[in-house]
């Protein structure tokens, strides 16, 4: 097992990883920008190294700064968290070249899954259902039009290097094809410095359902059930739950087994998530995330495993030690992402936390680096806390979540807690009757009414 691990991230996930290290008796080294000198994970770390100025590209995205810090601190392994360098295959490779262990999948798998077209091809070859569409990129608008005619409108044009909805365009009819193609290219170029785009069938009202897997270095793979992440705005997840209100036991097992089989065939290791669109009982692969995900806690609550602990164990070469039949699911869990944004206008609201009081009691979990007096730096993501609730049934879970949201005090800035409070009162949501477009419609509707 490792003696010392460097956490190449910030915010709540850095704290999450630090806590797992603590509980495993592993020394945790925090790296941070000057903007994060007072961050909770920095304060609680066994060692902390300032690696650069606030701008992420010079700190949290600086492979050289992070590897220098790892060398100086003499760590055994590096946990990348999510975002930043977590899905950067070159970084994972450099980490291994420097004789550190990268806590995550192999660089090759990260690279493969990072290329949306190659990934789609690869997973479909191992039996994972994909969205209808050619498995090549589009060279021009003409080819785009031809392809669209083949698979039928509406279609979606996506950046090959995609992610987070940038470089993504829906085309309803022949008329809009050229403009959408050019726009998608431009956005892709801007966002990823790389303008290759491809096309797939656009689904009208799908849910976003993803399957979590764990794999050791010896070919043992288990799935930990699914997460329903359909509550999204601008392709950003806001609330996730497990199990999905839309799946029955048979569907759950079927998709789980399909993913496990595929992951085995790919020789994939450590942690991963296969994201799907789900419509009319069919799953369509979107992408494979080769990292820990923001919403991993809902899976931890229902299956009783500590995913970060497992990632570290597996990276250290330990075998899974359990089989699919040992994974027992109990109860229901929901996670609310709490961002520092105005709940109506979504204006980012960085600043200094006045009073801070997290909810407590049975079935409540808060993952957050916030504390009274902490100043949220404007340079990074607006997510400042995750409220995770667990209960025996979805209904009790909703009641508990409502109770907890009411107790949460985050003073001094706007948060989207009021939006969460409104949406969990909506009959559609209570009935689990929502798709990936539901929240957008809900937010628009609400805006017209008095806040």
């Amino acid at each position: 097992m490792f003696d010392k691990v460097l956490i190449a991230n910030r915010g709540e996930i850095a704290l999450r990883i630090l806590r797992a290290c603590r509980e495993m008796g592993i020394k945790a080294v925090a790296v941070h920008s000057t903007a994060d000198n007072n961050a909770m994970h920095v304060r609680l770390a066994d060692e902390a190294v300032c690696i650069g100025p606030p701008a992420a590209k010079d700190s949290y995205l600086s492979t050289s700064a992070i590897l220098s810090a790892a060398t100086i601190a003499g760590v055994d392994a590096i946990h990348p968290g999510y975002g930043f360098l977590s899905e950067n295959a070159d970084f994972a490779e450099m980490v291994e070249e420097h004789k550190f262990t990268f806590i995550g999948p192999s660089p090759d798998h990260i690279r493969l899954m990072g290329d949306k077209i190659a990934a789609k091809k690869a997973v479909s070859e191992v039996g994972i259902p994909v969205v209808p569409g050619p498995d090549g990129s589009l060279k021009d608008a003409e080819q785009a039009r031809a392809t669209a005619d083949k698979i039928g409108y509406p279609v979606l044009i996506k950046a090959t290097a995609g992610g987070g909805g940038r470089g993504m365009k829906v085309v309803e009819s022949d008329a809009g094809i050229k403009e959408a193609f050019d726009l998608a290219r431009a956005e892709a170029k801007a966002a990823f410095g790389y303008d290759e785009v491809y096309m797939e069938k656009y689904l009208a009202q799908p849910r976003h359902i993803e399957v979590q897997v764990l794999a050791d270095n010896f070919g043992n793979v288990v799935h930990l059930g699914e997460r329903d992440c359909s509550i999204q705005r601008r392709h950003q997840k806001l609330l996730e739950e497990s199990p999905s209100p839309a799946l029955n036991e048979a569907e759950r097992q079927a998709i789980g087994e399909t993913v496990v089989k595929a992951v085995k065939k790919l020789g994939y290791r450590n942690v991963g998530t296969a994201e799907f669109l789900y419509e009319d009982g069919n799953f369509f692969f979107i992408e494979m995330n080769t990292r820990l995900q923001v919403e991993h806690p809902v899976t931890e609550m229902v299956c009783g495993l500590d995913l970060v602990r497992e990632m570290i164990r597996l990276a250290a070469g330990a075998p899974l030690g359990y089989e699919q039949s040992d994974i027992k699911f109990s109860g229901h869990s929901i996670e609310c992402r709490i961002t520092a944004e105005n709940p109506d206008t979504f204006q980012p609201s960085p600043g200094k936390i006045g009073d801070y009081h997290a909810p407590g009691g049975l079935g409540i979990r808060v993952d957050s680096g916030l504390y009274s007096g902490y100043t949220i730096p404007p340079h990074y993501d607006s997510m400042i806390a995750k409220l995770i609730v667990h209960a025996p049934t979805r209904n009790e879970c909703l009641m508990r979540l409502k109770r907890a949201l009411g107790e949460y005090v985050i003073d001094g800035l706007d948060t989207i807690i009021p939006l969460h409070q409104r949406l969990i009162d909506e009959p559609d949501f209570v009935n689990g009757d929502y798709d990936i477009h539901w929240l957008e419609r809900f937010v628009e509707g609400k805006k017209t009414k008095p806040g």
Partner: protein
Amino acid sequence: MAKSPKKNQIDEDLVRQLSSLLEETGLTEIEYGRDDWHIKVKGGVQQAAVTSQVQNTTTAAPTPAEPAPAADNPNAITSPMVGVVFTGPDPEAPPFIKAGDEVKEGQTLLLIEAMKVFNPITATKTGRITEILISNGSPVEFGEPLLVLE
């Protein structure tokens, strides 16, 4: 209420009364006076929680991280990167400079090794090295003061 308090005696009720008045009115300060006595009360300032929280959480933290004290001395030259600092071109060679030396702008003062690359730290201005804050081969953080050039 407030009758003139006896000699040197604090009329506690008066203070309490004013404090609840602060609460009620949202004022931050009340000053009240009579020919032969006066009183003034101030309410709390929000700031407070911050600094104390900083201290306390830090206490609670096993090993708190110290913010790099770069700002401490305006004349300090700080490290532009995390790495290992070297005072000379190689272990045997004498250091580039020592405390008290006069140096010219652009002159190499130290090397910082990061990722097997040696990055020279040069004098930002012509002047005198009054202090060297690091020792040969020691690791440095971004923003950590290396030496003082005046």
